């Protein structure tokens, strides 16, 4: 990764020691670098949360918006200037709770933006409360006796809403993550990558996931490559999270902005 894609003068970042956000950010910058995108044409848009601070550490145009609202802002930017590569940096809460409606509608419209969900299974910024992606039984500050509800499967949610590229990866699988981010950004149409990362300060501590280092390396124990998972029984896959590419289809409709009338 080219270090000049970072705003070095703004580092060190504000994240806790061992926070996964920096690892996803590195992978994102690596993907943008490998795609050889013109940095002048890349815009990062984020909502509110620890993860949403990531764009401010990059050398790209960056718009830090409101909690849950990065996707409509990105939609406005993309439709106003379709030549830009518009990437949304968002958290699991930002994208699936307060911003969930925007997520499904952007997927339905197939707006040509990429949504990168920094998924740490909880609300990091506000102190470790439950999010719609918090796994059942997990402890958070608002589920002290364990999460009662089922979480969204973000991959299925995006796919069901009409996203034309959907992938999931984890920060342990750095190259896998970079590859899928590259494909998502290069994809013509709405793309989403569920990037599973650790919040050692809250989710990790409350759920006895060990040190930041252990949270990183343990991903290889509970994440399974899609190609491997396809050969396994449901029993063998219980409690596992499958990573890989889930949707990669051609864009099914133009962006919902009206096309200019044909010249007669």
């Amino acid at each position: 990764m080219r270090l000049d894609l970072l705003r070095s003068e703004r580092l060190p970042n504000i994240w806790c020691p061992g926070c996964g956000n920096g690892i996803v950010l590195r992978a994102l910058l690596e993907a943008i670098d490998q795609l050889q995108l013109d940095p002048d044409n890349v815009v990062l848009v984020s909502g509110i949360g620890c993860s949403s601070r990531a764009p401010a550490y990059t050398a790209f145009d960056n718009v830090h918006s409101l909690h849950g609202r990065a996707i409509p802002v990105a939609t406005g930017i993309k439709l106003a200037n379709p030549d830009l590569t518009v990437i949304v940096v968002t958290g699991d809460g930002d994208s699936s709770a307060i911003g969930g409606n925007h997520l499904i509608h952007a997927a339905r419209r197939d707006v040509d933006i990429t949504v990168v969900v920094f998924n740490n299974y909880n609300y990091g910024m506000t102190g470790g409360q439950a999010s719609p992606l918090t796994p059942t039984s997990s402890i958070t500050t608002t589920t002290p006796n364990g999460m009662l509800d089922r979480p969204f499967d973000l991959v299925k949610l995006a796919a069901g809403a009409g996203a034309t590229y959907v992938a999931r990866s984890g920060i342990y699988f750095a190259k896998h993550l970079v590859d899928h981010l590259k494909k998502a950004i290069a994809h013509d149409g709405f793309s989403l990558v569920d990037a599973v990362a650790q919040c050692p300060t809250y989710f990790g501590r409350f759920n006895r996931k060990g040190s930041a280092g252990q949270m990183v390396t343990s991903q290889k124990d509970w994440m399974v490559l899609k190609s491997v998972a396809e050969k396994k029984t449901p029993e063998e896959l219980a409690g596992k999270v499958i990573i890989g590419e889930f949707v990669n289809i051609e864009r099914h409709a133009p962006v919902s902005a009206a096309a200019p009338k044909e010249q007669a």
Partner: protein
Amino acid sequence: MPEKKTFRITHNRKWCKDCGICVAVCPKKVYEIDRSDRHAIVNPQNCIGCRMCVEHCPDFALTVEEAKNE
């Protein structure tokens, strides 16, 4: 016998938060969190240049380059 490749590790002390992720992911025990809870490079000669540490450092604090023999 082909010469063994060697690698030069740089560590940005100002950005490092001593989180220990590099220690956990390095297959060659190059790093350690020392007794004062600080990141330390203890076995640089063992580095095989896999860059696991670079890719997983959340603070952009590590680079690993192949050392060119003069």
